């Protein structure tokens, strides 16, 4: 079974600063996906960024980037030039890669979340 650990329950940072959210995971799988999901206050959870384990290059999406260290089983999220709209709960999640034998029924395993507050 996979586990995902987010050791920072809460963080806060000044607007325009850079912040890094930590995530570690444990798995015996070699092929998998890692995700960061964002849940703004009273709004729907959305996907921020994903990383395929077989890719060495770290994923980036505008101001969001990850530092993926496969050997260390670490997957941190960096938010650059933070904005007030970045205030949210952030969840790290793991999913095994699709296997034909499982018919694409892989499931996400979530961490406990980090509540990020951007201070004006």
């Amino acid at each position: 079974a996979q586990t995902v650990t987010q050791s920072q329950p809460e963080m806060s940072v000044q607007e325009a600063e850079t912040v890094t959210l930590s995530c570690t995971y444990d798995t015996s799988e070699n092929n998998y996906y890692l995700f960061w999901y964002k849940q703004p206050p009273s709004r729907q959870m959305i996907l921020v960024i994903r990383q395929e384990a077989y890719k060495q290059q770290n994923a980036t999406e505008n101001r969001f980037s990850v530092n993926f260290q496969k050997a260390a089983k670490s997957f941190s999220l960096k938010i650059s030039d933070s904005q007030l709209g970045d205030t949210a709960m952030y969840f790290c999640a793991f999913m095994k890669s699709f296997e034909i034998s499982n018919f694409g029924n892989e499931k996400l395993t979530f961490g406990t979340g980090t509540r990020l507050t951007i201070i004006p």
Partner: protein
Amino acid sequence: DVKVTQSSRYLVKRTGEKVFLECVQDMDHENMFWYRQDPGLGLRLIYFSYDVKMKEKGDIPEGYSVSREKKERFSLILESASTNQTSMYLCASRYRGVTTYEQYFGPGTRLTVT
């Protein structure tokens, strides 16, 4: 845009009542999920459905059941609500396949059992 909707944003029920939470998605997704979200515990999977009338238990199925009679609709049922089922319930859906991975979430239902 994919849309996942849930029948209620807020719900208050009494202990022992039968509670129905409904979820509807409009993107013809095969897979649908029900999660429970509690502070400090993250999201925990209650049940999962990969096709009409097909279901699979998640990590915390006790006290819950589900129904999927149509592809777009996935219902979570609390047969006899208890106070420890007070929580935020999130529905999600996703295509089933080798090239898709993004799950789309509903807005959540905050259930209070008194």
